[in-house]
């Protein structure tokens, strides 16, 4: 009835997967030869599919076409080609994903495939139409994420760029390959991938439609009329043909989309705070705080103007920057859709990836592209100094790693967390100054950077200890202390701190009162728990050793 490749295609489209039986011998009638098994029920269900008829028609079409070619009847060939049997997958999608949220849950895979296929070269290996459709859908998706400001995490790896966005409560992760890497491996079955892509493009198209309508945007997307008139240039024909210039402008990601019901200004109305049942004030306040943080995060780059130099990945950076409210432009010769030129005075950040750059404007920062990505992951604007041209960049940490208590936390991450909390590394600078009075003063600035990484968080206690030590030293030396009697200050007692201390006391007493056997068990449990902490300490010590070794090396190299 159906040929084997057709059957496999149908299984992929319908979402029927091979099944591994528990008792292979029974199913295989005594032999243990490895075979692929499908459930009978699934196959019977498959037969009710109307696409099966379309497959048969296609087989007949191919046969007739071959005959016509063989007889060189070109008019017949044309006629057959015009009436080629086609099918649509809409009903399958409705069947597999009865609700929109189901579709959103499965959209990861679809996005990865679409982005992957849109980077393929347009040779005849797979249909060029599929590649074009994938490109269109991926551009639409990116525009949606920009319009809804839902990007949360970015990670640049050696494989590709991982993005994570939060859409309608679902966390969606997808992987985008680099534009310039392409060696197609030979052991990948292209037909299988093409079938998957066929299904996923349809799914993504419908999801895009729904998402656009949820945001009150026109679908298929149209550029906003105002911005479109700005973009109109005289030499537009240099970039693309008229038919393609629209999608090229859309894919430039520099313009905003038109809405169904156009609103003149976007006013973020303050939503009324309704307490959810069962929540007390604390939780509500926490939620409010979180929401405010999210709002602040979404507008992180608002007001900043970026300019991308030629050698940085334009699409990725444009996407990320626009997702957080910034404005971005690039050189006219790279791509269509650049809004302002390099000579614009209001540019605040210029993103460069070269070792040096000739002409430097004063009122803008020249930074490397990692700054943008690290800011997104840290959810705040990081200090720009670490990312200047020619500076060794801090490592790009993965935002997908969630450290539990006691795990090793790399010092860079600690620094970022400190910045998030608002503490500036001011205390650390004091200590550094003391240490470096003995060393060369020329190296002060560099050393500070290195030492900052080594410092711990509890600076207050250390400062106190240091003071006491100094006082003791002075006393031992016989100098008179500069201590004066001053009226006492009322120490504000922190009630929270007191509570904590009380609880700790109670715990200690309870431990003391345990029986020997119980204490033995308790010790064992604690040992197991603290294993992680011990490992983290070990790793930290290793890191310190490594950093010290580097410092020593640098010093030697300079001297």
């Amino acid at each position, binding site marked *: 009835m159906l040929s084997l490749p057709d059957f496999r295609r149908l299984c992929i489209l319908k979402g029927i997967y091979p099944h591994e039986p528990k008792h292979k011998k029974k199913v295989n009638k005594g032999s243990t030869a490895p075979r692929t098994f499908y459930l009978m029920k699934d196959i019977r269900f498959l037969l009710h599919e109307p696409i099966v008829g379309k497959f048969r028609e296609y087989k007949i079409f191919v046969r007739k076409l071959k005959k016509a070619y063989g007889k060189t009847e070109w008019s017949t060939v044309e006629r057959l080609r015009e009436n080629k049997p086609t099918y649509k997958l809409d009903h399958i999608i409705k069947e597999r994903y009865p609700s929109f949220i189901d579709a959103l849950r499965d959209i990861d895979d679809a996005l990865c495939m679409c982005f992957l296929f849109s980077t393929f070269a347009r040779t005849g290996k797979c249909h060029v139409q599929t590649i074009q459709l994938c490109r269109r859908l991926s551009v639409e998706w990116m525009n949606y994420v920009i319009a809804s400001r839902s990007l949360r995490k970015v990670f640049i790896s*050696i494989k590709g760029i991982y993005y994570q966005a939060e859409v309608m409560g679902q966390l969606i992760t997808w992987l985008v390959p680099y534009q310039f890497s392409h060696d197609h491996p030979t052991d990948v079955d292209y037909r299988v*991938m093409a079938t998957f892509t066929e299904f996923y493009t349809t799914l993504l198209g419908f999801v895009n439609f729904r998402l656009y309508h949820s945001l009150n945007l026109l679908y298929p997307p149209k550029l906003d009329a105002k911005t479109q008139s700005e973009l109109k240039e005289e030499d537009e024909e240099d970039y693309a043909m008229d038919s393609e210039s629209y999608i090229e402008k859309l894919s430039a990601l520099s313009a905003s989309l038109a809405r169904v019901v156009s609103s003149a200004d976007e006013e973020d109305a303050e939503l009324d705070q309704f307490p959810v049942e069962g929540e007390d004030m604390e939780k509500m306040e926490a939620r409010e705080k979180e929401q405010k943080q999210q709002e602040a995060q979404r507008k992180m780059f608002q007001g900043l103007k970026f300019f991308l130099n030629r050698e940085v990945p334009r699409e990725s950076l444009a996407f990320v920057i626009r997702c957080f409210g910034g404005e971005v432009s690039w050189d006219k010769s790279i791509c269509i859709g650049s809004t302002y030129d390099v000579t614009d005075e209001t540019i605040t950040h210029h993103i460069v*990836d070269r070792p040096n750059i000739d002409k430097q404007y004063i009122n803008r920062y020249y930074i490397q592209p990692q700054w943008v990505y690290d800011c997104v992951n840290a959810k705040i604007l990081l200090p720009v100094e670490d990312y200047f041209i020619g500076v060794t960049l801090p490592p790009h940490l993965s935002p997908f790693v969630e450290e539990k208590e006691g795990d090793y936390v790399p010092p860079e991450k600690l620094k970022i967390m400190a910045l998030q909390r608002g503490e500036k590394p001011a205390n650390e600078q004091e200590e550094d100054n003391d240490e470096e009075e003995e060393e060369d003063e020329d190296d002060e600035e560099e050393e500070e950077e290195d030492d900052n990484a080594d410092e711990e968080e509890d600076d207050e206690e250390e400062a106190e200890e240091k003071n006491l030590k100094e006082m003791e030293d002075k006393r031992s030396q016989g100098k008179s202390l500069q201590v004066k009697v001053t009226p006492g200050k009322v120490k504000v007692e922190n009630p929270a701190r007191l509570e904590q201390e009380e609880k700790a006391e109670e715990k200690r007493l309870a431990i003391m009162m345990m029986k020997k056997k119980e204490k033995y068990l308790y010790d064992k449990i604690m040992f197991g728990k603290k294993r992680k902490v011990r490992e983290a300490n070990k790793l930290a010590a290793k890191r310190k050793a490594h950093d010290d070794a580097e410092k020593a090396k640098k010093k030697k190299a300079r001297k």
Partner: protein
Amino acid sequence: MAAARRLKRVAASQPGFLTLKPSLNPSDLVSGRRKRVNKNKKKNWNKHSDINDVEEFLEDVRHQERTTGGLLSEKSDDSLFFLDIGQPKKAEQKVEEPVETKKRKGKASRPLRIDLILQHDSLIPPAKDVLAYQQPNAKKLRRIAQKAEQLAAKGVVPRRQRQLLNRRPVDRTAKKSATEANNNPDREYYDIWGQESKESADPWYLQQTGKKHVKRPEKLNEKPSVLPAVEVIAPGGSYNPDFLSHQALLQEAHDVEVKKQKQEDKLERQLAFNKEDKATEETVLREQVEGLVEEENEEEEAAANDDEEEVAVGAIALAEKKTERQRKRERAEKIKEQQRLANRKQTDQQQQLFQLRSIKASIKQREQKTKANQIKRKAKQEAQKSQPRRLGKLKFQPQDLEVQLSNELAGSLRQLKPEGSILKDRFKSLQKRNLIEPRDRAKFKRRLKVKYVEKRAFKEIT
């Protein structure tokens, strides 16, 4: 006689006729005696009238018409003559322009000879083709057309046209296949989840007519694997990784390599072969010569073997039949044994009452063991779920870890060299999540065996 004379005359009148006598003139021969001809007869008008002058005149007229397009006498004076006033200044400019055109066109200014040959060389316009203007039914057709015009002016339309207009327009579905194709880049999408299902008709009717939608089995909605669709690479895979996470990733890759190396070593060890066991020439010789040389040693060995065998044979021959006494004894013993066992069992049961505590302890132990086993089995099942299942002929081969060595790490995004292919990664991910079975590239299988034949030239050499 008259005929012969006529013949002579005709022959003589031919031009170039030579007489035998050179002094004789052929025309004299002809016009010796002129025969009298009646010029009034129609028969003789053609033969004996001299129309040369008229012919000349007409010829001249035709010549004039051919060359100049009309009679010279009818032409105006201006067309034939011009007044030569000398060379005006305009002539210089005029001369320049044609020279320029000549210079510009060059050889192209002269028309081709072939075109010249094909042109008419007489100025008389060619005659019109009368047949082209002849239509057999011209009048009738004209009349019909006029009548039709009059009717159309009134509004009456002939039947054929009425039928054409009434026919419904054909939906030109040219290239419909291209627009309806699933991967058409301009295809339309609509709100698939917004519309309610249109099954409003009677379910019995739908079932009988085959229009009922078959329900999708619930089991198909479950995902075949708990793994997430996109697995993010470890933090050591960043393009600018943190030192320790990079080391951790390198360690993992190193472990994999060590494992592979160990397996290879194991295989080699298993295949290893003790060199001493290899046959030397001495042992080969001995093996070949066995049975042919050294007969004395054989006899001694054979004698020793015989003695041992006899003793064994003796022991077997003494077994006899059992007597009645023996059978009775055996029966009594059996009964005794059974009784003993029954007693023992009873006492055991009674004593169990006192062993309750230890029994309880042993039961508890067993329960603990079964519980532990259950937990282990469950944990194993859970672990199995995240493993790729064995679905086909090939086992799942996980791809190599994507890792860049320390000296390959790029300092900046510009110098980054991507590692690994995302196409392969996606393919393997699909296999890992049990969506497809692991497949290998199709091998080329020959249907017919290949026969190797040496060429004759080769046969001579070898």
